[in-house]
Structure formats: structure tokens, C-alpha cells
């Protein structure tokens, strides 16, 4: 009897030793890009990172506005105060966050670029298109980083640009900052590759989808990059390919264009946001309006300062105005309007046709002023603004028109900076005021985050920090 029980126990013991040490992973797995569908999901991961509030979901756009003459931080919730005052330090959260998430956006594209596509199943067009998107994302993120953390494009770009990340690995990689000129070369190279692959992928199911990079979106990016480096041939070439394919949003549709949750006719590329995937209170809607955050407020005399015509729809009270009758805070009301229960669910419009038109006009200003006039008036007509005469076709007016059209979308600071203009002081009585910042001031460039300096010994800090 005794023997049997011991055998019995031993059997129980034996049966319980067979537990496996190999875990089953329920919520995460090693990347396995087996087909074009998983490639799609993987590149969508990059758009998701791009849409985070730390990058295009809010902070990058605000960084292009709040250091200029459209808006300032009233400090209501303590957000963007230092950026508004242009008093940044290398340890500031916003300085670190934009840097981190712009580079994080590049990770997935770098993995796609490094993948041997012959091992991936699925349609060749789809695969090529996604590869094109990967190059486009890499180009755009680096261009964005350069505009914020690099020096201005002067002296043939021999000054400090940014680190150009071309692979995804964590070994003791220490990539120094390239020159602005080298960044330019890399960005153009990525754009050209993107165009090549997009052309191969023209029949892809995503070739006409406005919530991912498409050939048109890459061309729009090319006009933006070209305008920044004042390489107007490139701009003209790219912009002319888009001409006629898109429409400028008519004046009576402008408010609707911004509040529509689907991309409108003028949209070339938007970052998708949905009711379940959005930045919520950390998005643009909540920082431009409301009393909870609502830190980013327009200067009181913005409409006069920007020289809007009286009937200009862009300055109508649906676009720029007051949230309530007793409010004295001038607000961006029209762009990124979603509030309430759909808070922050607007798509983030990254490339609109109107920007391409303005880039085009600037590009042909010297070489083909008539074309420039035609382009400018196309826009003015659709904004209920007075038309330009041939004698009005000046760079100054184009910069003014850009301010009116692209207001609150993150362009203003870069437009002043790339033309070597001072950042003017608008209203000395506002909080977090940067005052007049002369062109060439060290504060034009963000500091390289302390975190990067600490971990990447080969990186040099920007002057003045």
C-alpha cells in the first residue's frame, strides 16, 4: 500500500514538471513583415507616431506659430510659455519631445528600407508604394528636424544641420550632425527615391489615399523643401505637376473644409485621426481654445497686423474670433475645430493645395511674374480678398499672403526665418513675450536636447545654449 502511494505521488510530480518556460506573447510580437498587409501596418505605425501631440499632432505646429507674430502663450495651463518667450533650454520637455518623436517616426521607415522586399509576399505595386512612403516619411521628418534644430540655410549650408538617421539600431551608434547642405542632399535623395518607388507603385491601392504619403504628397513636400532652400526650379517642376489636379477650396466652403472629418478636395495629405485615435486634450483643438488649456491665443490686433481685407473669409468670425461674447481672448476658431465630444478628432492637414500654389508663386516670382500673379489671384478670389495687380507681385506680398492663408498651421516662423527677416514684436503687453528677435539670433534654432548631448558624444550643441 505504502509503495503504491509513493508511486502515485511520483506520477503526479512527473506530470507537473512539464511546465514550459517559453512564454506565449499575447500583446506583442517580433516583427514579421511577411506580406504587404503587414508592411502597411508597419508603416501606419510611423504615421501614428507622426500624429502624436509631441510632433505633428500639436507641438511641431505650435513651434512654428508661437515664436512668431500670430499667437503667444497666455500660460493658462503653463504650456508653451518658454517657447513663446523664446527662452528655451536644452532640458525643456517640448525641446526634447519634438526631437524624440520626430526621430522615432523615422524608425519604422528605416526598417522597411532595410528589408529585402523579395522576401515579402504581396503585390509589387503595394510593396513599392510603401517603400516610397518610407522614404517620404524619412525625408519629411528630417526636414522638420532641420528647420527646428538646425541652423538657418546660409553660407551655402556649411553650418550645423542635424543628425540624419538612416538605420534602426541601438548599438553604440554616434552619428554626428551633418551640415545643412548635407542634410539638403540627403532630403532630396530620399524624396527622389520616394518618387521613383511611388511611380512603380502607381497601381497600388494606396496611391490615391489622402491619409498616407502619395506621389502627389511627395511632390508637395518637394515644393516645401525647395522653397525652404530657395531652389525654385525644383519647386516649379514639382508644383507644375500638381497644378490642375487639386482645387483651391472656395470661400464659402472654407469653414466646412476645416471641420469635415474627411479630406477635402484641396487636401493632398492629412494625418488620420478618428474618434478612437486622437490626441484628445493634448491635441491642437484644446490648446487653441477653451479655458482648460487654451494657452495658445492670438494677438489682439492679429487681424489688422496681418492686413486682412475686410471681406476676407480667412478673417471671418468663424475663423478668427471670440469663443463667447464676454471673452476677450482672440482665438483660432476655424482650424482644427473639433471640440466637445469629438475633441481632437480632426485630421491634421499636412499638405494643402493652397500651400503648393503659394510655393509655386514664390518660385516663379522672378522668372514668370505673370504666372505668379495668376496663382496669387486664384487664391485671393477664393478668399473674398481683393485681387493683386501686376505691380503687387512682390516677395513681401507673397509672405503676407502666406501668413493669411497658412495662419495657425505652423508656417509663420519658418517663413520669416528662411527669408532672413526679424521676428517682430507685436504686442509688448502680452505674457511670455519674445520681443523683437533680430534675424540671425541664436534663438532661431532650438537647442539640441540635453538628452541627445548626454548620449551622443559626437553631437555639437547649437551656439547660444
Amino acid at each position, binding site marked *: 500500500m*505504502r509503495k503504491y*502511494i*509513493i508511486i502515485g*505521488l511520483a506520477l503526479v*510530480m512527473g506530470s507537473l514538471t512539464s*511546465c514550459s*518556460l517559453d*512564454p506565449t*506573447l*499575447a*500583446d*506583442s*510580437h*517580433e*516583427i514579421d513583415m511577411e506580406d504587404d498587409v503587414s508592411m502597411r*501596418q*508597419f*508603416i*501606419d*505605425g510611423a504615421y*501614428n*507616431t507622426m500624429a502624436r501631440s509631441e510632433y505633428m499632432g500639436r507641438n511641431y505646429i505650435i513651434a512654428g506659430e508661437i515664436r512668431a507674430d500670430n499667437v503667444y502663450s497666455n*500660460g493658462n*495651463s*503653463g504650456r508653451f510659455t518658454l517657447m513663446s518667450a523664446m*527662452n528655451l533650454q536644452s*532640458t525643456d*520637455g517640448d525641446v*526634447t519631445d519634438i*526631437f*524624440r518623436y520626430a*526621430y*522615432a*517616426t523615422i*524608425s519604422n521607415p*528605416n526598417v522597411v528600407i532595410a528589408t529585402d522586399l523579395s522576401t515579402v509576399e504581396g503585390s509589387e505595386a503595394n510593396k513599392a508604394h510603401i517603400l516610397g512612403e518610407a522614404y517620404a516619411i524619412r525625408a519629411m521628418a528630417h526636414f522638420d528636424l532641420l528647420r527646428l534644430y538646425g541652423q538657418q540655410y546660409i553660407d551655402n549650408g556649411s553650418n550645423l544641420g542635424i*543628425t540624419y*538617421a538612416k538605420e*534602426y*539600431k*541601438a548599438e553604440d551608434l554616434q*552619428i554626428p550632425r551633418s551640415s545643412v547642405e548635407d542634410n539638403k542632399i540627403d532630403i532630396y535623395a530620399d524624396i527622389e527615391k520616394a518618387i521613383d518607388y511611388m511611380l512603380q507603385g502607381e497601381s497600388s491601392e494606396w496611391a490615391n489615399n489622402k*491619409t498616407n504619403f502619395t506621389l502627389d504628397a511627395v511632390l508637395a513636400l518637394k515644393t516645401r523643401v525647395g522653397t525652404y532652400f530657395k531652389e525654385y526650379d525644383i519647386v516649379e517642376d514639382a508644383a507644375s505637376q500638381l497644378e490642375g489636379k487639386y482645387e483651391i477650396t472656395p470661400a464659402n466652403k472654407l469653414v466646412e473644409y476645416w471641420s469635415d472629418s474627411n479630406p477635402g478636395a484641396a487636401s493632398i495629405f492629412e494625418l*488620420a*485621426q*478618428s474618434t*478612437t*485615435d486622437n490626441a*484628445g486634450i493634448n491635441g491642437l483643438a484644446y490648446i487653441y481654445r477653451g*479655458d*482648460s488649456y487654451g494657452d495658445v491665443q492670438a494677438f489682439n490686433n492679429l487681424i489688422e497686423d496681418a492686413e486682412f481685407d475686410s471681406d476676407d473669409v480667412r478673417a471671418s468670425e468663424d475663423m478668427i474670433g471670440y469663443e463667447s461674447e464676454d471673452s476677450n481672448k482672440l482665438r483660432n476658431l476655424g482650424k482644427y475645430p473639433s471640440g466637445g*465630444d469629438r*475633441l481632437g478628432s480632426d485630421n491634421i492637414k499636412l499638405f494643402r493645395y493652397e500651400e503648393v500654389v503659394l510655393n509655386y508663386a514664390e518660385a516663379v516670382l522672378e522668372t514668370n511674374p505673370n504666372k505668379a500673379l495668376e496663382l496669387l489671384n486664384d487664391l485671393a478670389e477664393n478668399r473674398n480678398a481683393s485681387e493683386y495687380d501686376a505691380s503687387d507681385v512682390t516677395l513681401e506680398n507673397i509672405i503676407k499672403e502666406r501668413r493669411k492663408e497658412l495662419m495657425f498651421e505652423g508656417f509663420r516662423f519658418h517663413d520669416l526665418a528662411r527669408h532672413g527677416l526679424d521676428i517682430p514684436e507685436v504686442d509688448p503687453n502680452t*505674457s511670455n513675450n519674445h520681443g523683437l528677435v533680430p534675424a540671425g539670433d541664436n534663438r532661431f534654432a532650438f537647442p539640441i536636447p*540635453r538628452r*541627445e*548631448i*548626454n*548620449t551622443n558624444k559626437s*553631437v555639437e550643441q547649437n551656439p547660444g545654449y
Partner: protein
Amino acid sequence: MKQKYTYLSVLFMILFVQISFAQKKSVTGKVTDPDGVPLLGATILVVGTTSGTTTDFDGNYSISAEEGNVLEFSYVGFETITRTVGSSSTYDVTLQPEANIMDEVVLVGYGVQRKSEVTGAISQVKGDDVKNLVTPSFESQLAGRSSGVQITTPGGVIGEAPRVNIRGIASINSGTGPLYVVDGVPYASTSQGANVDINPLADLNPNDIESFEVLKDGAASAIYGSRAANGVILITTRKGRKNSFEVNYSSLTGVGSPMNKYKLLGTKDFITISNEKTANAGVSDWAAGTDFDTDWQDLVLRSSALQIDQNVSVSGGTDMATYYLSIGYGEQEGTSIANEMEKYNIRARVEQDFNDWLSAGATIAVTRNSISAMNKGNNSLSGHMFNATKQLPNIPAYDPDNETGYNITETGQIGRWDNYSNVGAQLPNIMYALDHNYYKSKSMRNIINAFANANILDGLSYRFQIGMDYGTNGERMYWNPVHGDGSGYNGYLRQYNFDNQLWNVQNILSYNKSFNDVHNLGLTAVAEFQQQKDAYFSALGKDIASEYFNNQIITDAFGEQEISGYKEEQGIKSFIGRATYNYDERYFLQASIRRDGLSNLHPDNRWENFIGLSAGWTISNEEFWGDISETISDLKLRGSYAETGNTNIGAYPYLGVYGLNKYGDDTGYGYAQFGNNALVWESTNKLNIGLDFGLWNNKVFFSAEYFKNETKDMIINKSTAPSLGIPGNIIKINAGDMSNSGFEFSVDATVVDNGEFRWNTGANISFSKNKVSNLPDGADIFPEYSSNASINGNIIIREGEPINSLYGYEYWGVNPANGAPVYYKGDGSLVQIDYNTGSYYVFDESNPGDMSQASSLSSSEDRKLLGQTTPKYFGGWNNTLTYKNFDLSFLFRFSGGNKIFNYTRRELLTQEFNNNSTEILGRWQSPSNPGDGVTPMLWAAGNGVVNNNVLTSRFVEKGDFISLDNITLGYNFDRELLERASIDALRIYVAAQNVFMITDYKGVDPEMITSYGVDAFGTPKSRIVSLGVNLKL
């Protein structure tokens, strides 16, 4: 009635014996303990015969014996005594508890040893020492009772787990809490909750605990090698005794009130200060209106928090079986008005001997724990202390004219009343939030253990045991749509379901044998397997259709819905061998080896061996010791070395992990973790040298220990350059080394014992030193412990320094000429800030008004180490005094040598339109009225210039304290009185906890800090006064 019969029968027997038998007679009597309590089931043997009996419920016995026979009286836990039968037929015997603590049995992991045989460092705490105290969980009551064990209760929030560190902090990124083993089965001790703190250790009813053993050094814990880097706490629960029956009832009712509060401005000073801030900065006034003087702190804290604890246990046994059943109910209110707990415990245990070689048993324990809590974020607008301490005092919480009854506006703010500005940071009305939002958790824990034990051969036994630990937790969090956190979402309700399982199987083969009376050998072999599965899912609804649906997620009641969840698994396999040998109880040797495989690591690096060695020499058992033993009754030298590991490293630290992310309506992948297949075990090598020293039959007993624990291959989050785009900008590598070393001393003594008066005292002190000896590339680490960016960056882990040191600018004081703060630069020179520009200028003490020479204060060059956050010493002093029927016990505890970053203090000196602490009254006002010399001139919205957003030594304080943790006075009713009611014992007592604290610390409580030494808006602890009854039948 029963008593009468007993007397009659005894009388009858005596008569009968006298008359009938002259030779063999019946001997009767009563066996009691020194207090006169009858001992049930004491054994009486006639030495040299097979005749024996046990005492009945009243301690009475009857046995037939001849004159000249020797009777042996024995009882577990008491000294055995003998009586020779003489002419008398009645022998009442009083047994003394086993006085020599060296004969006590201690648990050592997978077995027991006599204390005299132990060669490692083990501290034991009896369950009786800590019951009858109000505590959400048992471990907080171990504080101060054992050397080397530091237990910190970080505040008065019920559900928040105390921090337990045995011999310092042994890891940077991995777990630092000990392994808990209850009756031989590992006990899940990590919290499974989201927004409500729950402490899994609270699931164990303190009344069910017989004793605690703390295994501190490597030798003691090596048998748990792979999981013992942070020490092990073994818990033994109560069980029934053979041939006895016992009912215990205890009841306690207490009232708690905050031990201390933040000292804030009232309306009058508040208005002065607020408008001085604005006047200095040249902006218009903020504050006006003196209609109200609201003490928001009083509103959110309870002045009388009810504490109820009820326990009944029934236990006993027959010759072959024992049983124990207990039921507990507890209700505790926290210091915060929203914080309370309700708890039910049931525990049942049965053990049965089948025959002389086979026994088996099982335990079932079920706990139901309901907790209500609140937002307590240290940087959260609705964090109850953050909000209450910063809210304006000159506005009301309630407004009868508002339709809600609260002072709130339609646009979502708190009404500013007569003030010219809204409250800084738009703090909502915390009373509205506390009354309308809720944070609730209901957890259920089921533990089932079973074992079978077979004595196969003489000295050889086999034990099989299995433990199942299954816990669920349902959590609900609701934010009202009208005001506060939920207004941005138009209502927010989130529900979680956590599901956690752990099973553990052990096969233990042990062999114990003495040869020739001097060679004592013990061998143990164990095969152990454990698996753990943790999962949760959560449902979130925003945009609520009506507040009516705020109690539970209801189909289609929400405009927006989200779900989320995860699951993870971990497993460990272990094969263990241990040999102990001692020669004549003089020379002791122990060796153990353990081989573990851990699922958390890559298959190539999964298996690791851990060895432990120890030796001891009981000098006092040597023959040459002779007469010295009259004085020095015990002298023992111990030494040990062992390797231990840390398994608390996360489920998949080595894997390159990709998480899913939505992009619009599509699913995208994102990186979540960069993989590292080369990751190996994080391990700690522990060295311990100990000396035990007993005087006068161990009436005074000293222990001294030296230890050095060296943690190597720590799994460190190495920072990578953000430009590499690695998720979180970190990669996990084995890189760091760290050591903890120190001395520990303890003394236990019976100071007086003259029958009527007895005084036992125990004291311990530990000196501990932590040093980070190696970090990747020697680079400083700024750990991101907190979600609050104002706290991170001020804590540094630097090679050659203690873990988590404070790092910032050194503060000189206030410039008497202009009220500006003055700091030391890295080179020792002084700089001051210009309030208008935020720029720094050289400060010349002889010419303080001079602001001509530009300078700087750089976070990269001018910061320095401002102190260590780990205590250099800590300990406790525990006393128990009994006089006749009274007993008195009290415990003092102390700790010190650490520095605290008093973040709360800095925040309460805010220059925004918020309330301040009274410290601000000492500000610089003018050269003729320079204030306390520490607090600069005020400046509206100038936190950066006035207080600095980087840590400065101005907000670094010493954390030294002495506290009277508890004091209890009890009265035991006379036995004679109780006997008439058939009651064995009745005690009533009054107890006070958290009685007082002596400290120079300027905050509320120097213990109310994070594990990295930051005081960040903690919730004060309660001082609890309670009355209780212990009844035994």
C-alpha cells in the same frame, strides 16, 4: 454546573483511590501555564512504562501510577518537567514556557531548523507582537522590529503598499521588494490595479499569522536563491493543536485623525501675499474679498476616521487531526474623505495523520477587499492634496445659489468670487470632484494549498505540496462630465478587470539523521515549478449619455468607446539541493545549490546556478567553556556567502517587442521595446558574518551582523541617443554593479522578571551604506521614476555614489539688497538672478546691489550632489511590560542620515495665484525688512526665477526622525472570575498608533516620501486611537 461535576468526581476518585488501592493509585492534578491558564492536551507519561494520558479542557488529568514512579509533563512550547509520585495523589503542575530562545524552531525555507543550528541571518517576529494594531496590511507593523529591515509607510492612503527593503535597495530597475512565502508557498505580492492602489499583502489577515521569519543574508535565503536578492519573508499561519479546542474572538474599534497637516495661509495673509506677488512684478492685483476663509485641507481630510476589526477563530484537533477556521471583517477609513476599505477574510486549514507515516492537509483562504480611493496625483489638478493645498482660501467650496450647490461656473471653473483672477492652473473645485467622481476597486483572492507528507524510512521523508493563488480585481473609475477631470470628455467611465494566477508545485525530499549522537546530518532535495499568468482588459466610455449611467459600463450609454488589455506569462523551474551538518552542536556547515530556469530570459541565458555556503561555531558548547557558561550562556560565530538572483525583471525584458497602435481607423505597429538577447540574470552575492552572544541563561541576547551584498549585472535601461529613434530611448543591458553593506545590532533582554513584574525589551539598529560601483560608460543616469517632469532630472544615479542621490544647485540665500535668490556656481562663486530678465549676474557679498557683471547658472556645469536619499541608519526599540493583570507595550522607531527633496514645500511657495504655506511669510520685502534670509522676494508668475525649476539645496532637508509608533495598554481579567463563565482569558486594551514624531523636517512627515526621496503631496497618516477586546474560550 460542569465545574461542580468535576469537583465531585475528583473528590469521589480521591476517596476511591484511598480506599481501594494501596499500591497502584490514581494520581490527579491540573497542568497550567505560569498565568494559571489551563493547558489543554498536555501529555503526562509514566516514565519507563507505556502508560500515559493528556489533560482535558480544564487542564485536569488523571493517571494511575505507583509511588516512586516518575511522571513527565510535557507540552509544545513549554519546558518538560518531572515529578516523582509520593504519598500525595494530587500533583498540580505549572509548566514554564521554553525560556531558551536558542531552542526555538525557525523556518529556513523548505524546512525548519532549531535557532541554535542556524548559520544565517534570520530575524523572527511573533504574530502576537503585531496583532491588535490597526493596519491595512501586516507588513507595516513589522517596521522597527527587526534589524536590517526597513519598512516605510509612505502616507495615509489605504491600499498604498508600504515599502519593504531588506538590507538596502538591491536593484535600480528591477524589483526591490522581498519574496514572501506563506506556509512554504510563494505569495504574489505585486499590485494588480490601475488607478486604485491595492496591496496584495493586505489579503493576509494579521490575526492568522503565527510568526514571521525574515531571511536576510545569502545563507538563509540561498535556498530561495534565484528569487532572494531582496531577501525573503517567511510567514507561518496559525493552525490547530492536537487534542485541544479553542475559540478566539477579538474586536477592535478605533478613530483616526491626521497626524499632521500642511501649514497654509488663511485669507488675510493670502491676500497680502498674492497682491505682493503682483505688485512686485508690476501687474494688476489678483486677490480680493474676505468673505470666506476656507480650509480646503480640512474639507478633504477626515477628522475622525472609523476603524473596525472583528475576528473569530475556532481551532483544535484530535489525536490524528487538527483544524483551524477563522473569519475576519475589517473596515477602515483613510485620512482622505474618499478613501476607505472594507475587507472579509476566511481561512480554513485541516491536517490529518492517516497513520504513523502519512499525513496530509489543505488550506483554503479567501479574501474580499473593497477600496474606495481618489486622484492623489502630485501634479494632477484634481489630486486631492495638490488641489486642496493650492486652492484659494477666500472662496467657498459650496454655493447655495448655484444649481449644483457647489461653487463652480458654467464654463467649468471654480468661481473666483471677488478675486480679479481665476485660480492658478485652473484648479477645479476638489469637493465637487471628490463628491461626484469615484475610484473603486473590488478584489478577490483565493488561495488553495495542499500537501502530503510521507515518512518513508527512518529520517527520510517526502513532501509534496501544491499552491494555487488566484486573484481578480475589478476596478471602476468615473469622472463626472460637469466639472473637473471629466468635463473635457463629457463624462469618463473606465472599468478594468484584472485576472492573476500563480501556481507552484514543490517536491521536497529530506533526510535528517544523527549518528553516534554527535554527527547530525540533514539533506534536502527540492524540485519546484511555478507559473504565473497576469491579464487584464479594460473598457472605457467617454461622452456619457446621462450621469445616471455612472455606475457601470452600460451598452450604448457612451458616445465614444475604447477597449484595451494585455496578458503576460512567466515561469520558473528550480532544482535545489541542501546539506547541513553539525558536529555535536558545536561546528555547523551548510551548503546549498540551486539551478533555475527563468522564462523571462532568452533560452540561451535562461539557466543559472546559485550556490550558498555557511558555517557556524558555537563556542559556548565547547568543553573548555565550562563555568563561563554561567555568565556567557551562548556564544556563536557565523559566516556565510551565497549567490542570489532577482526574478522580478519584467516578463519579457530581452525581447524586441512591437506594440499595436491605431492609425486613424487602421491598425499600425509601433516599436515598444528594443530587444537584447544577451540579457542574463541579475544577481547579488551576499556575504554575512554574525555573532550571537547570550548572557545569564540568555536573559540578555545580543546579535551582531556585518553584511556586504554586491549586486552585479544589473539590468539597466541604458539611454540611447534620441536621434536613434529607439522606443523610450532606452535599451536594457546588464551593466550596473551596486553594493549594500553595513552592520546590524540587536539586543533582546528580560530586564526584570519577578513573577509580578516582567519587562522585556528589544532594540535594534542598522547602519547601511549603498554605493553604485559601475554604470554603463560611467554615465550618470537620471531615472524617470515620476510622471512629473519637475521631479525627474533632480535624481541622479552616479558611479561611486549612493543610488538615487539628489542633484541640483547649492543655495546661498537671499540677496539682502534686492531680495533675489543667490546660488553657488560649480566653481564656488556666487550668482544672483535678475527678476526682470531671468539672467544671472555675479553676486558680490560686499556690494550686494551690484548687478553689472553678467554670469550664468548652468544645469550642466553648476549642479552638484546634494545628498543621499537612502537612510544611513535606522532601528527600533520595543518594550513589553506586564505587572499583575496589566500589560503595556510600546515601540519607538528611528531613521536618519537621508536627505529629502521637499518638492511639496517648493510647490507651496508658488508664485502663481494659488495658496501658499506659511513659510512664505518670511519672504524678503525690502532691504530693511529682509525676512528669513531664505525666502526671496515674491514675483507673480515667477516660479522659475524665485524658486528655480531645478532642484536647489534650499528644498533639500534632513529626513531624521524618532517616532513613537504605537503604545498599547491592556488589562487581563482574573482567571478565577472568568472561570465561572467558562472563559479562559479576557483582555481589554487601549492602543494608540502613530502617536508622535520628533523631527526637524519642515514637511508633514519625513517618511511620506517616494522610494527615491521626494516629498510630493503625500496624504498624511492617521493617528489612531483604538479600544479592543481579546476573548478566549
